[in-house]
């Protein structure tokens, strides 16, 4: 699943498949990171008050 795995080869199959996979994982990762960071920032702004 990584280019350093020995069965990895740079062919169409790997590029398309793994490309799609890493693309999806990246979106999920960035999305979640964004949410978490933003939530942390929002929370510190709120100063402990759960309801605005």
């Amino acid at each position, binding site marked *: *699943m990584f280019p350093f*795995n020995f*069965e990895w080869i740079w062919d169409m*199959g*790997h590029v398309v*498949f*793994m490309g*799609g*996979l890493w693309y*999806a*994982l990246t*979106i*999920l990762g960035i*999305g*979640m990171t*964004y*949410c*978490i960071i*933003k*939530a*942390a920032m*929002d*929370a510190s702004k*709120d100063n*402990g*008050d*759960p309801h605005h």
Partner: protein
Amino acid sequence: MDSALIPRGVKRCPLWQFLLFIGAAGIVLLWGVYAMFLCWFKGLNQTNMNDYYGFALWIWADLAVIAVGGGAFFTGLLRYIFGKDALKNIINYAVLIGFICYSSALLILAIDIGQPLRGWFIFWHANVHSMLTEVAFCLSCYFGVLTIEYIPLILENRQIDKVPFFHHLGHNMHEVMAVFAATGAFLSFFHQGSLGGVAGVLFGRPFAFREGIFIWPWTFFLFTWSAAACGPCFTILVTKITEKVVGKKLVKDNAIELLAKISGWMLLTYTIAKFIDTWYWVTVLAPSQGFTLMDFYSNNPLYGIWILITEIAICGLVPAAILITPKGRKNPVALWIAISLAVVGVCLNRWVMVLQIMAVPVMTFDNWVMYLPSWQEVATTILPGAYGVILIAISYRYLPVFPNEAELNPMEPLPAEEAEEKSVEPSVDLEPELTPAEA
């Protein structure tokens, strides 16, 4: 006792009753867990699988739960991408059901493989040409998506929501949910399809093999399609069952009807596609390999031609016809029948695409083989059911799964027209600690 955890404005049964219910389901769950550990520690000899039935009950259960779990991705797709807002009242539950289905599928896979501790080889040493690799990747990724979709719901629990970070996290996740949903739909499309592809690429098995486009056999598309068609039916079915169990209306009719209508059309088009696929298979593909239709169906009653007729006509055309007509889907009995048939149909299709493939002999001197699952297999297959019931019960009790619940079941004295409906509700449902003012 646990009233602080229960969402505002809704009534829940007393804790003892809840615990009794969880306990009952828990016993079933433990039975399944026991069987699961037997399989892990003693090996797959605990099953009745054999070298002919290398895929059996579990793989069927896997395919079936993923198919019916398809309600999550399809409802999400409709809600977030196509903007069908009416569905926002059922999307939470769709996500929860999907979450249960997908976690169950992963669990069953973890039991099903002969070397569970090496299961991660499928990722690490992935063969990108294998449909199963595609399944594994998309399945686990989509399970991640479902978790992401489920988290905000958990965060809405009254107590958790009090934590500002969680509150904001939930809020922010809602904000970008469309992105997650789109990714989920993308992943789902592929793993639903590749589950179909798992069977379709078996060119050594004329019963399963189909031609297709690029690397994807027709079954790839048929599986995605049927999951999109029948998954929402399962969501509706579980919703309806939940409503029966708790004795309340939880989702507004317009959401159910919209979903039912879309399902109906999906099912109709799917059935037509399936029919064309079957026709081509019977008249061109199978004969080119020396098989006639009845070679696949005639050996014994279990794997008889009834299975094909049931799948296409009774569980395809009939529910589709009910669901696409407004009269049909508005009629509660007809709706019940339609969604049940659709769910049975998709499960039957997955059954056929797993077990009948194994049963049909290919070599002329080979024999039909029958298979009866062992209790360990049955227990581990029921295990997700018990786990699902428990997770639904907990989620329902403590999380605002149904945004319309409070609105549909106001705790003030009931208006006259709703009194009838209310009368079927069990009387024990009263919780003295909750004040009606909360609504």
